[in-house]
């Protein structure tokens, strides 16, 4: 099996054993159940950890929905891990606990300095539920973090990426926080979730609902304020809706990840597609060597599917994020023209400096690399200047504009410039001189602010 090729060793040091702790090696995926109020827990050797919090009730609903919120979170987790089997070196953690303990920022700020290694990535998922008559409405939020490599463990690292063009490197940034459109879950889906939960809350001995099974002690975690323990498995395969996991004693068990009666949770919660894509992007971005082609294709497809879903336009920033990430995955696979994805993202959120910056730099990348394209210098310079106008202190945009002018001045690039859109070299030199002064002034200001 391909996952055995990885030499990752999952170590869960520091985690006591009070309920069940299962660990195996050398494997590439892992899954855990942890209380919010306990000791921070994540898989230290994973490239990316995904933490799923319970969905909590909004308002003062007559019915207690928090039970449903925990059930929904478990199914989100199982669906996510089933989808994540196309990737490697991840960990997924389901947190349980009370609303006041399960604060997403607190969870992240506890995890990043202690459990996420420098440069490691963390996705936190949480949400709200509201019941009206026989329908439940779900609002999901996702935030991505990267642990810093330097000496400021409390500082979040901006999720940036680099695009080499000629002798220059351009830099871009995608959003790290996403809100998803409210989704309605009809009573039938709620019943399916409850039924699904009743089947999914067990560890089975075989991929068969009739096989011997033992219940996952999620309620014990919810009640356990001081319990510092985790229930963890490594994951080593999937088949027909089942995920095969391995316990510490090397015995194999099975989790039911997709409900057999045909309920596809992503039909109701499109954000599961987004999460699948985000997880794939974050797993493989920055990887040395060529990204895993099939894995990045899976991630890209999930993001494109999300962007095509009816209703995704209700949260344009998240739809734009899906398009940008899909474009970046294409870029990671060596595609020279992913600019259409960034142009569409820009059309959705024209007030974002970062998105306009990305739209500009991927046009440069396309025009520089494709033999039948010419660089339309004036239009692209205007894009960067407009991005700087939207966020006048955005040093990344200013650096990119300077790099773009450098590129235009390079003799090796002169044949790639569309003459109708060319910029006079004297004008370029003047702009570069201004840019250098602006950037020096901003650097001074920033140093003063710190």
């Amino acid at each position: 099996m391909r996952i055995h090729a990885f030499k990752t060793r999952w170590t869960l040091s520091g985690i006591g054993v009070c309920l069940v702790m299962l660990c195996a090696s050398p494997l590439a995926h892992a899954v855990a159940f942890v209380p919010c109020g306990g000791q921070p827990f994540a898989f230290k050797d994973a490239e990316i950890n995904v933490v799923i919090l319970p969905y909590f009730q909004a308002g003062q609903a007559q019915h207690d929905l928090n039970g449903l919120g925990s059930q929904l979170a478990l199914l989100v987790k199982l669906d996510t891990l089933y989808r994540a089997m196309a990737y490697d070196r991840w960990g997924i953690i389901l947190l349980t606990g009370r609303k006041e303990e399960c604060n997403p920022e607190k969870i992240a700020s506890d995890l990043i300095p202690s459990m996420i290694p420098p440069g490691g990535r963390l996705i936190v998922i949480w949400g709200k539920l509201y019941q009206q008559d026989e329908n439940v409405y779900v609002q999901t939020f996702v935030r991505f973090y990267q642990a810093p490599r330097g000496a400021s463990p409390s500082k979040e690292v901006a999720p940036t990426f680099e695009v080499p063009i000629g002798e220059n490197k351009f830099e871009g940034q995608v959003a790290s926080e996403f809100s998803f459109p409210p989704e309605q879950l009809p009573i039938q889906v709620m019943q399916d979730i409850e039924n699904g939960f009743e089947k999914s809350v067990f560890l089975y001995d075989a991929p068969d609902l009739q096989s011997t099974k033992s219940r996952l002690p999620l309620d014990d975690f919810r009640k356990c304020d001081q319990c510092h323990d985790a229930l963890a498995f490594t994951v080593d395969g999937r088949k027909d809706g089942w995920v095969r996991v391995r316990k510490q004693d090397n015995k194999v068990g099975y989790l039911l990840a997709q409900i057999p009666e045909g309920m596809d949770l992503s039909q109701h919660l499109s954000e599961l597609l987004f999460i699948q894509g985000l997880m794939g992007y974050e797993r493989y971005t920055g990887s040395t060597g060529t990204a895993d082609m099939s894995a990045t294709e899976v991630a890209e497809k999930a993001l494109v599917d999300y962007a095509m879903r009816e209703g995704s336009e209700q949260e344009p920033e998240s739809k734009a994020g899906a398009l940008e990430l899909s474009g970046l995955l294409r870029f990671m696979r060596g595609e020279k023209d992913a600019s259409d994805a960034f142009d569409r993202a820009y059309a959705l959120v024209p007030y974002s400096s970062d998105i306009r910056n990305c739209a500009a730099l991927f046009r440069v990348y396309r025009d520089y690399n494709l033999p039948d394209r010419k660089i339309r210098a004036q239009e692209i310079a205007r894009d960067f200047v407009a991005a700087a106008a939207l966020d006048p202190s955005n040093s990344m945009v200013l650096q990119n504009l300077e790099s773009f002018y450098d590129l235009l001045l390079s003799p090796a690039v002169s044949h790639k410039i569309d003459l109708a859109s060319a910029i006079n070299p004297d004008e370029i030199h003047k702009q570069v001189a201004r840019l250098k002064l602006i950037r020096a002034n901003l650097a001074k200001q920033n140093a003063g602010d710190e």
Partner: protein
Amino acid sequence: MWITNFRFAAPLILCLVVCPQLIGQCSGLSTGTEYKVLVDEVQYSASAGVTPAVSLDMLQASVEGALEKVRQRLVKSLRPGGESMGGFEYLPCTGRHPRETEFSDDFVRSMVGNHAILEFWGTLFALDGGQHKFDIRYVMFPVNSARQPRPSQFAATQKTVNNKPTPEQVTKFFVDARADLPTYFTVSAGLQKYADRQLPEAVRFLCEARTRLQNKPDQQDLSSYVDTIANKAGAELRQQTLASGASLLSDADAKDYCTFATTR
């Protein structure tokens, strides 16, 4: 509390005169320099006289969803034990559910002096014939400083439904609230940033606000005002010799700052 700076003492003294009850309801209003969003209560209309058949939870849930969406965007850095909302904070105001008539010029000035930029509350009106109206009302305090004729500082997210709301109506109300709160938040934040001479942040918020307001034909006066202030902020930024990216704009581009910045 010791007040050592008159700049902070003056609005507090004014607020002690015009809004003493508010200080008790909105803990933290008179302290700190963060921009404050006052989150009031969601209530039934006290004057309707008709028993509502719908719970307040839909309003509450839509408010919570919208607040979470804005908060998400603002959280910029992690601090041990919690988050920073990048110079903004939400103040829950227990028991507060104001009427628009309460917002006199003095009151609004005292709010601005205390760095409050936006206040909003929700009301569920039970109407005759089994109808219900869901109403979230916003007050953008910095709009008050506009010259006459000034745009309204009030705005609303509203939905009237027959009997009980359908699933489509619930979802639409959620979506509308999640679009409106960021709109009025960016208007308020941008105007206040301009007033506080934080010009790069001002143009960023104002160009976003102006783009969001383009979907609201009944608020073109507010959109025009936001545009005017954005142009002023852009012009002032350009006067600061090579201090920011705004200096790269030509005179023609800068004339209509946000149009240049947000169109291709």
